């Protein structure tokens, strides 16, 4: 009797917390899944960048890059230098624009600026994933609260399904009633990808836990965000930078042979940091050098049980150390976890349609579901289409790409709510947006092919992967739309 009561209460908690948080969690999981390949998506969106396989930066390129960093700092821009890696073969001089790191791309052989189109790139998905474009305090805090909601919903779901958890591990019945099939699909994806979902939810909440449980008063954080630190504008304050090559070699030795990831330049010193890709423990270990002579000031290596645990949590969540094969496993797991949340939301509506389907609140909830589950993919595909269709030399085109994404998504949201509230067949809203996904997804490889054929040859793996995924989603959306049409008929 007690257990039944507990299950009933957990059912309520799972349904409502899952649905309310799920509306945003689908977006967070989808963009997080795409962010697994953020560097690759950025490469796809900048076809002008030539393939420079295993190109090591030359002394000339490094010196030219350090001069550029100093020039930008003299103008008050807090720029830093990102070194080439296995995933990105170029030098980058980046600064934070309030949402993501943007800046110049340099040829690692010559140090010349590569005239690539400005793009929001895959970093947009990364930024959206962890902050919902809401900034460092409100956005990240909201995502953290939603992450906690996910863990609550998952915990409640485990209690509800505990008795059948192991026996029904691979249970899927598609030929029974529609609601039972959706429940099986939800349980299947939810249970099988439970380790991944819990790991990502827990580590995600933990890496930004300070945003909901701040160690410093919130007022301090707000004041810090309101006035971001800027470097002194006077060029006289910036010491000249010695040749970087010997410093990189020294840093590599002092960091235990780990690759160097990026270099931060202060007025009188520079810090060379270990690459995030050098292992599962994502550290900020670095070596400091004094300027202008380049003498070693010290090595900072953070160790200890708490620090190491946090480094592992960061490493597991950011997944920057993973090879390509494991990255794909993360991607597939992310998609299936998203599907688990989305199917739960569909179930929530199905269970209440008969009793509450006529109510305005239900219709709006369904409209929001349409906007989230089918509207978001339309927005994402439009973002990729926008990258190819907007003129490459257009000023401020990176913001226009983002505008395209939000505009199309807003249109989908409006369409979903109108279709849900104003028609007798709410399924038409789902179907029409699935058709839009199918058209945009299947058209993506064609759009890419008529563009720059050189980029296709140079980055064939990346183009095949992204175009292939677009086409695959298009085909899946077309199949679902067709099935819905058949059922309606």
């Amino acid at each position: 009797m007690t257990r039944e009561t507990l299950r009933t209460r957990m059912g309520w908690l799972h349904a409502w917390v899952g649905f309310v948080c799920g509306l945003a969690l689908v977006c967070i999981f989808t963009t997080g899944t795409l962010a697994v390949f953020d560097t690759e998506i950025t490469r796809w969106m900048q076809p002008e960048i030539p393939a420079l396989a295993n190109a090591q930066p030359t002394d000339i390129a490094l010196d030219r890059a350090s001069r550029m960093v100093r020039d930008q700092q003299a103008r008050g821009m807090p720029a830093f230098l990102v070194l080439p890696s296995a995933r990105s073969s170029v030098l980058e001089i980046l600064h934070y624009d309030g949402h993501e790191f943007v800046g110049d791309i340099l040829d690692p052989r010559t140090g010349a600026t590569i005239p690539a189109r400005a793009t929001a790139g895959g970093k947009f998905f990364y930024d959206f994933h962890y902050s919902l474009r809401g900034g460092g305090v409100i956005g990240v805090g909201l995502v953290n609260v939603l992450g906690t909601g996910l863990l609550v919903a998952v915990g409640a779901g485990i209690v509800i399904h505990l008795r059948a958890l192991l026996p029904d591990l691979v249970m899927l019945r598609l030929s029974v009633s529609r609601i039972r099939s959706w429940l099986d699909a939800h349980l299947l994806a939810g249970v099988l990808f439970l380790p991944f979902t819990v790991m990502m939810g827990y580590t995600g909440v933990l890496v930004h836990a300070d945003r909901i449980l701040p160690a410093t008063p919130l007022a301090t954080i707000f004041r810090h965000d309101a006035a971001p630190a800027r470097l002194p504008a006077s060029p006289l304050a910036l010491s000249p930078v010695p040749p970087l090559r010997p410093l990189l070699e020294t840093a590599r030795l002092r960091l235990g042979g780990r690759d160097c990831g990026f270099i931060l330049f202060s007025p009188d010193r520079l810090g060379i940091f270990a690459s995030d890709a050098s292992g599962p423990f994502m550290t900020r270990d670095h070596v400091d050098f004094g300027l202008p002579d380049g003498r070693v000031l010290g090595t900072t290596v953070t160790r200890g049980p708490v620090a190491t645990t946090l480094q592992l949590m960061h490493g597991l969540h950011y997944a920057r150390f993973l090879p390509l094969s494991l990255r794909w496993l993360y991607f597939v797991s992310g998609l299936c976890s998203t599907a688990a949340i989305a199917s739960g939301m569909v179930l929530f509506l199905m269970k209440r349609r008969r009793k509450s389907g006529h109510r305005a609140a239900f219709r709006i909830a369904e409209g929001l579901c349409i906007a989230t589950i089918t509207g978001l993919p339309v927005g994402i595909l439009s973002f990729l289409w926008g990258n190819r269709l907007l003129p490459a030399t257009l000023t401020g085109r990176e913001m226009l790409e983002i505008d395209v994404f939000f505009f199309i998504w807003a249109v989908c949201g409006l369409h979903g709510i109108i279709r849900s509230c104003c028609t007798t067949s709410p399924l038409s809203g789902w179907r029409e947006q699935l058709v839009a996904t199918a058209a945009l997804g299947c058209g993506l490889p064609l759009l890419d092919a008529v563009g720059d054929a050189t980029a296709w040859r140079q980055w064939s793996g990346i183009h095949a992967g992204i175009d292939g995924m677009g086409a695959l989603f298009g085909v899946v959306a077309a199949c679902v739309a067709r099935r819905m049409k058949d059922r309606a008929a």
Partner: protein
Amino acid sequence: MTILISLLSWTITLSCHAWLQPARYHLPPVSRTIQVAMRIVRVIAPMLALGVALTAGPVAGVLVWCATFSIAGMAVAIVVERLAHH
């Protein structure tokens, strides 16, 4: 190769898991001897998968082990559903 072996091991494990409950999954029943063999495989194959996965390192190994379990489970569920349906 590590991923493939782990995936295969989990596929075998979860297939055995389904076949050990033929009534639940609407599958044809199997003989007592095969059931015993399946029980043994269901215990040994995940350990084999873990052993192989850990060659990629402790952290990456556990990630591979868990991810291949999930993906193999999806594949087995779809195949078992098709078999039961027919």
